[in-house]
């Protein structure tokens, strides 16, 4: 339930707001619904990752040009070890790392702060 709420409310907020808006959304919802910091971290990060990767997959699938490949190449320089990683995997890994950290710590802090005030 919490997962779905973060996904839906976070999705709507992200569509209109700045990229980090998912953090306050996850924080607030976990404050309200999550039981333990661990649960909050896992649920919020899973929801954020789902949201980011899901939307990215949609944008990439409907795009005329594969921009993911071009951006990946810009970062890996097209040489060395990183160049051997499939480009989409490289980009999605970065997205996942960012989404896990932002969403996870936001959710976790919701529960921890609630405990402080109660």
């Amino acid at each position, binding site marked *: 339930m919490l997962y779905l709420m973060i996904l839906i409310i976070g999705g709507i907020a992200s569509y209109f707001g700045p*990229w980090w808006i998912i953090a306050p959304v996850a924080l607030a919802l976990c404050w309200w619904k999550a039981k333990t910091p661990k649960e909050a971290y896992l649920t919020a990060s899973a929801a954020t990752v789902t949201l980011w990767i899901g939307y*990215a997959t949609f944008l990439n699938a409907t*795009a*005329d*040009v594969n921009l993911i490949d071009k951006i990946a190449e*810009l970062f890996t320089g097209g040489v060395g070890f990183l160049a051997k990683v499939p480009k989409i995997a490289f980009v999605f890994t970065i*997205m996942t790392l960012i989404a896990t950290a*932002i969403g996870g710590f936001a959710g976790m802090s919701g529960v*921890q702060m609630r405990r402080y005030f109660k």
Partner: protein
Amino acid sequence: MKIIKHFWSYLVMVGLIFLLHNPIGPLPPLGRLFSPFEGFLQNTTNKSTLTDSELNLEGVKDEVKVIFDENQVPHIFAKNEDDLYFTQGYVMAKDRIWQMEFYTLVASGRLTEVVGEKALEFDRYNRRLGMARAAAKIAENLKTDSISSRILTAYAKGVNTYISQIDYKNLPVEYKLLGYKPAEWTPYKTILMLMNMRSTLNGGSDDFRITNVVDQFGFETVKDLFPDYPVEESPIIPVGTKWDFSPLPVKTPTKIMSGADDDKLIVKIPSPAPEIGSNNWAIGGSKSSTGLPILSNDPHLGLTLPSIWYQMQLSCPTVNVYGVALPGCPGIVIGFNKDIAWGVTNVGSDVMDFYKIRFNNAEKTHYMHNDKWIPTTKYIEQYRLKSGLVIKDTLIYTHHGPVVYNESKTTNFNKNTPAGHAMRWIALETTGSDLMIFHLLNRAKNYDDYREALTHYTAPAQNFIFASNQNDIAITPNGKFPLKWKEQGKYILDGSMPEHDWQGWIPMEQNPTVKNPPRGFVSSANQFSTDPTYPYYLGWKFAPSSRGIRINERLTAMTNANADSLRSLQNDNFNVSARRILPTLLTYLESSKEASLAPAIDIMKKWDLVNGPDAVGATIYEAWTTELGNWIWDDEFPSKQFLLHPSEDRTFEMIKKESTAKWFDNTNTKDKVETISEIINGSFKATIDSLTLHNGPMNPETWAWAKIKNTSIGHLGKIGSFSRTGIMNGGGKGIVNATTASTGPSWRMVVELDKEWPRGYGLYPGGQSGNVGSKYYDNMVDKWAAGKLDTLVFMKTVDEKSAKLTRTMTIKPKNK
């Protein structure tokens, strides 16, 4: 402790968001960039982005319709001129804002602000050229020119309206990567963009390199090896054209260059780039199948993505014109309307001269001129780095222009006073408005209108070609030309002698021109404007004559031509230089005893002299002639020590007629005197060895000309994955199809004039969109490489129907 226990995760989150929201070192803001909701994925496009739309904008007075065709070329239909240029600015910014701003940062030497310290030297060079200061002055002067200032203001308003609408999500991806935002557009920035063109086309000089040759070898050698007119030439104004004016007198002083130097002059002023040239021609009705003129133009520039050109049609009750515009500039630069067509190629006359300056002291407060100490003007230049750091630099101006090169060493002028070199450069002329020529050409109806338009142009001087449906064709090397004595500015001038100042200007009406010549066509390919009978001095060196010779040969033979005949000439790959020299070179190779070279020699013998994409002969020829030039000249005239090599024309003449010239000897071998045969054979072997080393043994596939040439269209900001490489096509420098590794025809256009309605064909190596996420970023490249042209949609009225029109953007005035 309790606070830490409960708030640490919150602090981690806030810290992470902060870090990912801002650039760290060279890294862009990663969170923002990779978020699918705001980042680069928002720059992807698909069909849904290209549908009809309606906008309400404050800047327009009346309804404007912008109809896009299948190449996403906008056809703007406005009800008045202000709305027309407002909309031109708006749609151009929508497609190209990053590129527009980038050019202005280059010209004003402000790249460090967005890319950081690595651009400092480049910025410093551009600031020393003084372009920003001249642009500011021009923009100020233009305020008194009611037409130009009205157009510039309307255009800037359109650009700014678009800028005010973009949020981070819609920013071009380059802004996201570099972490900055577009700033307000002003008429000054449009002038900066034009400065960029002046610098690209007129911003090179060999004055230092040839002065070094004089210092070392004397005037006699220079006269022999660096003549003022080539042996083989086919000038733009046909030989025999009468000059019906009485020229102004010009006095030549006895001393024609500044005193010799102790050391070689070493400066980082680039040589004029011969590959940055262009072709244009027009055939009269006597040669065309329609009985009316056909005009062709292909300006050769550095190939970039986004492209330097932007196609559009501009229409309102006072004008209806189609063609290409420069991003950042209102109006159409090369194009056609119902009655006329016009185009440009670079003239390349000598309009950048250097003066040796003698200062009175180390602070350089005064300099000597006409036996008096004249005060210098100093400006403090500030470079803001991306990091916020500010670096300062002092720029010194004399009446000649800016001192672009400060040398610390003492010189012959006076052992105790520092010297420097000031630059007199046409690009810094602040009179007149180059925009007016395009304004008038866009509206021109006949030859007289063309001639009137020409008087409104300063620089970079262009060969303006013209054709009308009244069956007139004409060409005019046009711009402001300094009135010079013969060879003035070939060498470094003496900044203290008033006789060395520019003497005035060639009166505009005395610029070389020809109308309806008996040969039935006019043409230019950056070669000499005229033969030596023209009473004024324009320069001693122009682009090699080979393209011009080939174009004129083919046009002379052409009859009953149509647009496709001219298109085929644009793609002509015949190598005129090879025709001139290869038979002679091959006779020397006959004596070769190297068995390993036999297959390569055989290829050269069988080569049809065409630089086609598959030609191995072209690969060897191009590499070999470069190598041969170095073998002959680089011992006496080392280019690393800033000495100029004689031209290809002079070199070929020496190979053919002066086979015992002392220059063939390699002076680096002390106890041996090399013969011409040894140099030709040796350089051939070195060429084959080098090609083998880099590409493996000779093989028709790996040594194919297109493979070796590897034409690439690089991204303007040098992002590799935003570039196109390995384009398979023929051509080369000195070939009519002047496609080299990184330069080439940046727009190809052919227009068939007609009494009713003209037919235009054209295309450029790029796409209308500056967005790398759009398929219209580079959609014309393959067709361009194949040498094809698109049929251009030149609409008569806003209601015209065509299967090629895809969507309409309607702009309505916003009700306040």
